[in-house]
C-alpha cells in the first residue's frame, strides 16, 4: 500500500478525498443540528442536473452545478421560511424534478459520456491537478466562512428564533449556511459523486453527535472522523480495486454504527423532572 502512495494520482486523490471529507463533515455539523439533511440531498441531485446540462451545452460543469445548487437551496430555504407547504413535500418535488432534468439532459446527449457519470458516482482516483486546486480553493472558502461565522451558525442551529430575538442576523446566517451547503456539495461531486456526497455531510456529523455533549467537541470529532474515513476509503478502494465513493461512504457508515453502539447518550437514562 505504501508503494501506491508514491504515485502522483494517488497523492492527488488522497488529498482531494481528505479535503472533501474535512469540509463536508464540518458543514455537516450545522446541517445535522439545524435539520437540513433533506435539503442537502436535494441539492446534490440538482447540482448533478447542472453538470449534465453543462456537458450537453459545452459549458464549464462546476459553474453550472453551483448555479443549480444555489437555486435549489435558496428556493427550499424560502419554502421553509414561508411554511406554506410541508418542507419534506416541497423538497421531494424539487429533488425529483431536478433528477428528471438530469436524466433528460443525459438522454439528449445521445452518446454515452463517461465523465458525466463520474460526477454521478464519483471518481476520486481520476481527480486532475486542476480539479484538486479548485477543490482546495472552494474548500478553504467554505471552511473559512464556517470559522468566521461559527458562533452565529451554532446559535441558529440551536434555536433560530432565539438567535434573531437576541440580536443575531439569523435569517442572513441561515441563507449563508444554505449557500455553503450548495458550494460544499458541488466541490465534492467529483470525489464521491452526486448520489453519495450527502452521506459525507451527514454521517461523520451524526457519528460525532452520538459521542459528545458539547458543540465544540462535536465539530472537532466530526472533522476528524470525516477526514480519516475519506482517507481510509481511498486506501481501501485502491488496495482492493473497489469504487472509491462507496468505499468511503461504507467505511463511514460502519464507524457510525459503532458509535451508536457505544454512544454515551444511549447508555444514559432520561433525567427526572
Amino acid at each position, binding site marked *: 500500500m505504501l508503494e501506491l502512495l508514491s504515485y502522483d494520482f494517488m497523492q492527488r486523490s488522497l488529498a482531494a478525498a481528505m479535503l472533501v471529507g474535512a469540509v463536508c463533515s464540518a458543514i455537516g455539523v450545522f446541517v445535522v443540528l439545524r435539520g437540513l439533511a433533506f435539503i442537502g440531498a436535494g441539492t446534490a441531485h440538482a447540482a448533478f442536473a447542472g453538470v449534465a446540462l453543462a456537458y450537453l451545452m459545452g459549458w464549464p460543469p462546476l459553474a453550472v452545478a453551483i448555479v443549480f445548487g444555489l437555486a435549489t437551496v435558496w428556493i427550499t430555504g424560502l419554502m421553509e421560511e414561508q411554511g406554506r407547504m410541508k418542507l419534506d413535500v416541497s423538497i421531494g418535488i424539487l429533488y425529483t424534478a431536478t433528477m428528471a432534468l438530469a436524466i433528460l439532459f443525459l438522454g439528449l446527449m445521445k452518446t454515452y459520456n463517461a465523465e458525466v457519470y463520474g460526477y454521478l458516482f464519483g471518481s476520486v482516483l481520476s481527480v486532475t491537478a486542476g480539479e484538486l486546486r479548485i477543490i482546495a480553493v472552494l474548500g478553504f472558502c467554505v471552511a473559512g466562512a464556517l470559522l468566521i461565522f461559527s458562533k452565529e451558525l451554532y446559535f441558529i442551529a*440551536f434555536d433560530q428564533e432565539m438567535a434573531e430575538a437576541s*440580536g443575531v442576523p439569523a435569517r442572513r446566517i441561515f441563507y449563508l449556511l444554505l449557500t455553503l451547503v450548495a458550494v460544499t456539495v458541488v466541490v465534492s461531486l467529483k470525489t464521491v459523486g452526486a448520489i453519495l456526497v450527502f452521506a459525507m455531510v451527514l454521517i461523520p456529523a451524526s457519528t460525532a453527535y452520538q459521542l459528545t455533549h458539547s458543540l465544540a467537541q462535536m465539530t472537532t470529532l466530526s472533522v476528524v472522523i470525516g477526514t480519516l474515513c475519506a482517507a481510509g476509503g481511498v486506501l481501501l478502494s485502491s488496495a482492493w480495486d473497489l469504487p472509491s465513493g462507496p468505499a468511503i461512504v461504507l467505511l463511514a457508515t460502519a464507524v457510525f454504527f459503532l458509535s451508536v453502539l457505544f454512544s454515551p447518550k444511549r447508555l444514559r437514562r432520561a433525567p427526572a423532572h
Partner: protein
Amino acid sequence: MAHPIIRFSHATFGFPGVVALEDITLEISEGEFVGVIGPNGSGKTTLCRAILGLMPPFAGGLQIFDCACQELRCHHRARIGYLPQKDALDRHFPITVLEAVMMGRYGALGLFTRPSKQDREIALHALENVGMQEHSKTALGHLSGGQQQRVFIARALAQQPQVLLLDEPTTGIDITTQASVLDLVQRLHRDMGLTVLLVTHDINMIRERVNRLVLLKTRLYAAGPPAEVLRPDILREVYGKDLVITEKDLIIVEDYHHHHH
C-alpha cells in the same frame, strides 16, 4: 415616574387576516416589574414578539428605547433578554450549559468578533446569578426542566440586558420549582434594577410579586397595580365562565391549555 422605555400607542399587531392585538396603548417604565396576563390566544406572546421588534404594527406605533420598533437593530435587541416559551428541548442536542449561556453574548458582540475571556466571565457570572455555576460543563439535556429554565435566564442575563422579557417561564415545570424560578426573577429585578415583563397564565403566582399587571384579551382590558386589575368584574368580563374566585381570593382559571399563542 421613571423614564418609559417601551411605549405602545394605539398599536395593532397580527398576521395576514388575523388581528392578534388591537389598539394597545401602554407605557412601561425603567425598573418596573410588570406581569402580563390573559386567557389563551389573548396576544401575550405577540406582545413579546412586538417588543423584540420581530413584528411591526399594522397601525399605531411602538417605541422601544426611543426607537421605532421597525427600526430596531440587532444591538437594540441585544438589550432585551428574552426567555421564549419553553419548547421541548432535544435532550440529545450536544451543548453544554456554558455553551448555551455564551450564546447570550453573540448578539451584542456582533459578526466577526470572537467571544473573549471577558465574555466567558460574564457568562459564568450570569450562571452564578441563577445558582447554576457548578453545572457549567454539564450537558444541557441532562438538567431538569427547572434547571434548564435557570440556564436560559442566565443566557438572557449574559446579554447584560436592560429589559428581561419572560414568556411563561414556569410552564412545564413542577410547582415547587415554579416558585423558585419566580423568586429568582424577583431577586434579579430587585438587585440588578432590571425592567421585567413576565407573561404568565398563573395569576396567583405573580400577583404578590409585580408592580403592575397588564390584562390582555386582544385588547388591553386593564393595566395597573394588581389590586386594581384583579377585580372580579373585570376578570369575569375577560375570562367569562372559565373563572372561579375562591373564598381565599384565589383566582382559578379553568380550561387552561398550555399551547396558546
